[in-house]
C-alpha cells in the first residue's frame, strides 16, 4: 500500500491547491501557500510551479495584477466531482463501451487489483531510483 500512497503525493498537493482556490476568487502564490495544510506547505517556488502546471492543463486561469500573477479556478468544485464519462457509459455493455472508449485501463478483478498494488510499489521504487532529469 505504501507504494500507491507514494505515487499519490503529487496529486494530493495539486488537489489541496485546487481546494484553496475554490474558496477564493483570485489568489497569488503566497496566499495559496498560506491556505494549504501545513504538511503540504512547500517552498514558494514549488507552489508556483504547481500553479503554473495546473494553468497549462486548463484547470486554472491566470491574470496579471501589477507585478504579481493571480490564479483562479476555471473548473468549479462541482465540476470536479461531477459525473464522469465512465459513469455515463456504465449502462453500456463491456464490449460496446470498449469500442466507444479506449481508456488507460479496463476493469480489473480483485485478484488483479492485489497484483496491481504490488506492481505500483515496484513502479514507485523504480521512479525513486531514477535520477531526476
Amino acid at each position: 500500500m505504501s507504494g500507491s500512497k507514494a505515487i499519490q503525493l503529487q496529486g494530493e498537493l495539486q488537489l489541496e491547491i485546487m481546494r484553496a482556490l475554490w474558496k477564493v476568487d483570485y489568489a497569488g502564490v503566497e496566499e495559496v501557500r498560506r491556505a494549504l495544510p501545513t504538511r503540504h506547505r512547500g517552498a514558494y517556488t514549488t507552489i508556483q510551479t504547481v500553479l503554473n502546471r495546473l494553468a497549462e492543463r486548463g484547470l486554472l486561469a491566470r491574470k496579471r495584477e501589477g507585478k504579481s500573477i493571480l490564479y483562479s479556478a476555471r473548473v468549479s468544485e462541482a465540476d470536479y466531482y461531477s459525473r464522469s464519462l465512465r459513469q455515463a457509459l456504465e449502462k453500456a455493455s463491456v464490449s460496446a463501451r470498449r469500442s466507444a472508449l479506449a481508456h488507460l485501463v479496463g476493469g480489473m478483478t480483485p485478484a488483479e487489483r492485489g497484483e496491481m498494488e504490488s506492481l505500483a510499489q515496484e513502479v514507485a521504487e523504480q521512479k525513486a531510483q531514477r535520477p531526476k532529469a
Partner: protein
Amino acid sequence: MTAALLAALLLAGTTAPYLLPVDRLKPITGAAVWLMVLLLRATLVVLGVFSAVLYLPSTELFQLATHWCIHAVIPFFATHLGFSGHSVGDAAIVLPALVLALSAISALFAVLRAARVVRRWLHRGTLGRGPGESVIVGGESVVVAAAGVRGARIVVSTGALLALDEDELTASLEHERGHIARRHPYLALGGSLACGLARMLPGSADALRQLHFCLERDADEYAVQRTGNPLALASAICKAALDQPDLEPTPAIAGLSGLGAPTRLRFLLDRSSASSRAGSEYAARGLVAFLVGLTLLVGAMSPTLARAGIAAAGKPVGQHLCES
C-alpha cells in the same frame, strides 16, 4: 472430402493462435491475429446457420424428430399467431437464423448506443480544453481516454489532471493518441461486431479480450516510442488502475487474471520482454495471411454450398402432414 478438408483447415485456423507465443509478437500483429480469428468465427457462424436452414430439413433424422405440427403442440396460440400448418421442424430451422440476426442487431445497437452517449457527453459535459488537444470532463477518478469511433477525441478527467504528474500525463496522452493514430477504435468496433455474430461459439469473448489487450499494448508501445519513458506510463496506469472500483468476479473474467493491466505493466517495467522474436513474428504474419485466405475461401464457397443445399432441400421429402 472437400468438406472434411475445409473443416480441418477451419479447426487449424481457430486453434493455431492459442499455440503462438503471443508475448513474443508485436502487439499490432497480435491484434491482427485475433481480429482475423473473430472474423473467421463470425463467417463460420453465418455459414453454419445457412447450412442449418438449407441442409437440415432434408435429413431423415431431422424430419423424424420434428414432424409434429405446431397447432398440435400449442393448439390455441398457433392458430392465432398464424403458425397453423407448420411443423415444429420449421421453427427449429428458423431459430438459429433468428438468434444470429438478434445477435448482430444487439451488438450493433449496443455499440451505436455507447457511441451516441459518448458524443452527447462530449457535446454537453466538457468543461474546457485540456493539454495536448484534449478535452476536460468532470469526475474525480483518473480517466484518460480516446472517446468515440469516428473523429475520436482524447478526454481527460479533472481527477486525472490533478493526480498525474507532468511525465505521467504526457505518457497517458500519447497512449490515447496512439489509439487514434493507429485506428484502434475501428479495429475494436470490427472485433465487437464479429464477436456479436460469433457469440454462440465458445471462446469468442476470450478472442475479443485478447484483441483489446493487444490494442492496449500497441498504444503503450506507441507512447513509449514517443516519450522514451515507460516508467511514467506504468505509473499512470497504476494510478488509473488503483483508482477503479473492484469488479465483481464473474466466471467469464475470473480466469483471466494477468491478461490486463498487470501484464502490460510487466512489459513496461521489463523492456527486454517487450521486444518481439523474428521467428514468432513471421509465424504470426503467416497465420494472419492464412486466416485471411481461409475467411475469403469460406466466404467464396458459400454460394456453391448454398446452391448444393438448395438442390438437396429440393429433393422430394413427401408432403408434410401439417399442410393437409
